[in-house]
């Protein structure tokens, strides 16, 4: 199988299989979560409250007072990674074309140099948070195989994408094929690992904001 044939498989059946597993998994997981139900809260909510589920979905993206100082690597690394990853994912023109191909939606992209910087920043941030995971006593204590697997699965698309873009290590076609395949691995793993937080974070933040908001606290 040549690199182009591998790429063709990755763009074709590979992508279809990965997206299918991802869609299947996300729906299954959401059913698993919501099927457990939530009892209606009978306590009288505060009449006015600065907090709510919707507010917390957004506000939890900001560090609470004092925490940035206590865990700078987690926060700054987290921001740089997530922003860099999002810029790379959503504003690299070939990626927009992928979304257009899937959904018909499209929007303007960013110049390649900007995306390049974002990708490098995201990769560096991933290594910084890995170093932190290996050295910080809490993270090290909490981490298991899945945490390192999720890290690797996140790194691979960025790394292969970067290498493909810069035509290093292997020729572009092979790298591009590996890039698409690594994304497919990520998609397959997403519903069944902690990577599912990309979906469930909106649910968990909403519940949190709702629980606190009822009591008059903006959480």
């Amino acid at each position, binding site marked *: 199988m040549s690199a182009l044939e591998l790429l063709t498989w990755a763009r074709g059946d590979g992508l279809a299989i990965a997206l299918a597993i991802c869609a299947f998994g996300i729906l*299954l*997981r959401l059913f*698993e*979560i*919501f*099927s*457990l*139900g*939530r*009892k209606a*809260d*009978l*306590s*009288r909510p*505060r009449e006015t*409250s600065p907090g709510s589920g919707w507010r*917390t*979905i957004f506000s*939890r*993206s900001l560090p*609470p*007072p*004092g*925490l940035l100082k*206590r*865990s700078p690597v*987690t926060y700054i690394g*987290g921001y740089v990674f997530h922003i860099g990853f999002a810029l790379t994912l959503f504003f690299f023109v070939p990626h927009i074309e992928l979304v257009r191909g899937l959904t018909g939606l499209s929007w303007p992209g960013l110049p390649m140099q900007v995306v390049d910087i974002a990708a490098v920043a995201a990769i560096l941030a991933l290594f910084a948070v890995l170093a932190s995971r290996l050295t*910080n*006593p*809490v*993270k*090290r*204590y*909490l*981490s298991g195989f899945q*945490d390192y697997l*999720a890290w690797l699965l996140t790194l691979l698309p960025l790394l292969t994408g970067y290498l493909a873009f810069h035509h290093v290590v292997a020729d572009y076609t092979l790298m591009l094929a590996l890039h698409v395949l690594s994304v497919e691995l990520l998609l397959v793993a997403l519903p*069944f690992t*902690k990577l*599912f*937080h990309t979906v*469930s*974070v909106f*649910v*968990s*933040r*909403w*519940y*949190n*904001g709702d*629980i*606190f908001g009822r*009591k*008059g*606290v*903006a*959480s």
Partner: protein
Amino acid sequence: MSATYERGMNAFKEVLDAPIASFFSSCVHCGLCAEACLFYTETGDPQYTPIHKLEPLRRAWQQEYTLLGKLARLTGLAKPVTDAELAEWSPLVYDSCTLCGRCSVVCPVGNDITYMVRKMREGMSAAGHAPEGLVMATTRAIQSGSPAGVKWVTVQAQIKHVEAEFGFKVPVNLENADYLVLMSSWEILNYPEYLGAVGRILNKAGATWTLAEDAYEATNSGIQIGASDLARELVGRIVNAAERLKVKCVISPECGHAYTAIRWEGPNLMGRPFGFEVKHILEVLDDLRREGRLKLKGTLDTPLTYHDPCQISRRGGVYEQPRTLLNQLAPQFKEMSDSGVMNWCCGGGGGVSANERAEPLRMTVFKKKKAQIEELGVKTMVTACANCRVVMEEALEHYHMDVEMLGLTELVAEHLDES
């Protein structure tokens, strides 16, 4: 009957709900909850990472309520939680968590870890892994009416004392009163001034109020130990009294978890919304002030600060009222670092103060509050929770610190304009 492992695991299955499933699904092991938890910050021991305290509950969820977890268990890839593990987790779930909720406001994915610890304790207590101190306190609460064993006769003695000192009659079992006044064991035993203070304030405001012979105790060990059946029985006494006496509002005293128990958990434990209101005493004071029914004179001119009880402010939403009152009463009122909803716990909430096993750890983690007080340099600290007050008074003595503790209600009563 007996607590059993099976009853514990069954309780896990009962309490697991959609919020918990979403929380476990979202956790990325970032470790930030540890940085918000004084049991970690003051010990540096990663086993006190809040999310880690829930590991048995998480495994139970995964193996019971997720397809992959179930498959892993059927194929032997995942091992079920054992009774020994539950025993191992008991100190983590009871001794090193005060249900303060700080981790819950910090978690970047929005996990309400406190919500989960509260639920996990249902299984832990059903499996017989609650600490002895809490078991005894709960037993006393159910059997004698108060976790400290305080009986109605003790309250009656205090009533006599208050009537003699202030010259007003303390109403008991009065129907159709505006307020049903509750107390915590601590107020009955350690801070008798509370009843006098509340009486004077309500009388001055022209409000009618009463005590109830069968519902004087506001605390609820059932909530702390995590046994909803017992918590329901305890809160039911108050609800029955309030309904029988047809009061308009039940006042939760200066006690953190009592407020949570009656105000937020109460209706859910009883399975019905209440026909009366439930307010913390600070809310009542602030309402009266706003209505012009609480007039104050004079000020306390010493530098002082306010300790936010976790259940009152972060998990209760009462954080503006004490500040309005203190700004009026104390010109030298200074805020502590991380005040309001980001406050640090005294170290004795959530049943930890009733758990002798946890006492050395409780003293260690008080270093946080100690550092905050020292940073501010004040010698007076006001609070609105008798449990916080007792815990901190003990710890202040332990660390030989010359800091005076005051109840806010008592401070308000002292500056009541009685003209």
